């Protein structure tokens, strides 16, 4: 094969361009740490990265939901516990009031205590969380209990989906405080107050079972809230694990191995230097013309 000057130059140009191109790509990969910077770098990996990105985003959003909802559930659980304590106090008052030796004025004072307890319970039942009134069902913007304890909310459960399908994630005020749960807590307190005001120890004694049932009702709802919190915590743990797995998968698919990248870049730097040196020698040929 005849080797002309143009052939020699073309060969040098192509070899240098190829070496420089590979070196630039390796440098870019080593400096960015990314194995895939564009879909054509690895089409299958690129599609996988997009899917992983969507999954990571979804998991992050679900974890946000867990955090938001957990705060409200914890508040509801504490509120229900406090409400149960109030009912225990009311039962204690009822026990005192059932004592036949108490005078009318003493029962009147106990009735006043019950009114205060009811007021405090109304306050608790109207507690607010991050999305409105905690015990109002879906009517989160409206105060669910009047001063007398009349309920204007509903029994709709607040639901979220944090990975396993729609799940209830709130406290149900109707089931905790109203007849929807079996006992109307405020009606039971009202009955106690009325019996005390009427100075009727027999009637006062008759409220004891009802008050206990109301307290148990609050306890049951508190237990349900506790279960929901546990379920959310389990979901949070699963989501955290999923997040770790997805992050690792993203790294595995999309990140360049730093040692491999660096050693490749070093090898290509040396190859480029050799290519330049050889090119210089090739370009120095043409001795006949130089005499």
């Amino acid at each position, binding site marked *: 094969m005849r080797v002309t000057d143009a052939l020699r130059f073309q060969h040098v140009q192509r070899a240098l361009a190829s070496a420089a191109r590979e070196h630039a790509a390796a440098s870019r990969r080593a400096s960015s740490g990314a194995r895939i910077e564009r879909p054509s770098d690895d089409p299958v990996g690129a599609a996988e990265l997009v899917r992983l990105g969507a999954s990571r985003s979804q998991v992050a959003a679900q974890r946000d939901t867990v955090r938001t909802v957990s705060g409200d559930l914890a508040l509801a659980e504490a509120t229900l516990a406090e409400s149960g304590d109030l009912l225990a106090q009311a039962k204690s008052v009822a026990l005192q009031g059932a004592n036949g030796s108490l005078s009318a004025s003493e029962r009147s004072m106990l009735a006043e205590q019950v009114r205060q307890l009811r007021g405090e319970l109304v306050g608790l039942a109207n507690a607010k969380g991050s999305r409105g009134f905690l015990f109002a069902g879906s009517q989160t913007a409206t105060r669910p209990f009047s001063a007398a304890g009349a309920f204007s909310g509903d029994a709709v459960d607040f639901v979220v989906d944090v990975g396993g399908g729609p799940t209830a994630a709130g406290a149900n005020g109707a089931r905790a405080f109203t007849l929807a749960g079996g006992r109307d807590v405020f009606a039971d307190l009202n009955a106690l107050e009325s019996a005390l005001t009427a100075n009727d120890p027999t009637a006062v004694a008759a409220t004891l079972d009802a008050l206990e049932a109301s307290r148990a009702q609050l306890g049951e709802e508190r237990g349900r809230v506790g279960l929901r919190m546990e379920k959310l915590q389990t979901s949070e743990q699963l989501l955290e694990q999923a997040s770790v797995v997805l992050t690792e998968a993203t790294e595995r698919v999309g990140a360049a191995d730093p040692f491999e990248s660096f050693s490749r870049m070093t090898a290509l730097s040396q190859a480029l230097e050799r290519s330049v040196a050889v090119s210089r020698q090739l370009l120095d040929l043409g001795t006949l*013309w130089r005499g």
Partner: protein
Amino acid sequence: MVALNRLLLTARDALAAQSFGLGVTGQNVNNVNTAGYVRRSADLRTRLGGGVVAVGVRRAADAFLDRRWFGASSSSSSASERQALLSGVEPLLSDFGGAGLGDAISGVFDAFQGLASNPSDPTTRQVVLDRAEHLADRLNQAADAVAERRQEILQKAQASVAEVNAEAAEVARLNREIAVAEARGEDASDLIDERNRLVLGISSLIDVKTFTDGQGGLVLHAAGTTLVEGGVAATLSIDLAGDGSMRLWSESSGPPATEVTQGLSGGKLAAYKEVRDVDLVDVAGRLDQLAFDLGSAVNTQHALGFGLDGVSGRPLFSLPPSATGAARLIGLDAALVGHPERLAASSSAVTVPGGSDNAVALAGLASTDIASGGTRTASEAWADLVGDFGTRLARAEATAEIHSDVLAQTEAMRESASGVSLDEEMVNLTRYQHAYDAAAKVLATVDELMRELIDRIGR
């Protein structure tokens, strides 16, 4: 005396012939870097009586290699142009920086998730509207960018066709001039080189096949039709079919023009046709389908729910009636613009404002097969598009590299046969110089002999 005179004439002819050889060598040296230049050599012949005469110039051309060169140029140009055009579109689909369409899709579903956890919060509701609008904007931008690329490619194709027409007319003119020069017995090498340079230029724009006609003229076929024959060149033109695809027409010696689109198989024009009417149409179609599928699914679910005002049946996105143009036309529904309270998070009017079940259902669409005929989630459909485009470009890059290697190989073969080697020319220069020196010496010797003869006779 007669013998001396003959020797004198022979030496004169030798001087002229070697001088001619030196001239040809100089011409080669001068054109060592001229693209398409074919090395020449002096054609020296023995004259009766022992003299030498330069009868002309021989071009070290190989018509077979030239044809392969034009073909390789067409293929390489087509492949590299397609790769370059697809690379220009790739940033639209690169979704790894956190600002891509995939993130916009996830953003909407994440916002629904947020709405489900706090359905009455005005800020959360506004975030949903912002994310939905952002998604629509991203789809609009992607669709507009694809449409702009298609328009740019059409303009490039029109410019290329104009270039082909101009160069084909030049080839036809050179065909005429070469025929005249050869008929007069003149050296047409420069004209032939120039014609080859033009044909190479045309071959980078359109597939080219060359052969010689009965009179030795060059016939040029392109896109399956005769582009140049003798001194006549056809005219190519481009228009758009009813479906917006590009059509190539050829008109020779007046109307009617013939459509030659199907014959287009190489050069940049083939790349323009394929990228514009196949690759980008596919991308645009899939973007439209994704926008339509996603928008329709969200709208259907959203319409089932109730806003804070107790109204249901509202879509979230405005969409065209079919997938055609959906990516370009999708937007936030006018009734929702500026009205976050109209977002339908509750599935019943009586569970407003705290009901979240419809928001939960909307968020659940992220994991539902709502795209690609109900076989893929929206994010998966987008990932499929990204992956398929990446595959397409990776293949185009590999093809471009192969064709580039083939072209380089063909160029090397042609260069080896027809190129100028300065070392060779140096040897030739020395050879002609020595021959010239020797002829001059013969001349001097004859001159001396004749002088001596005249002197003796004169005594």
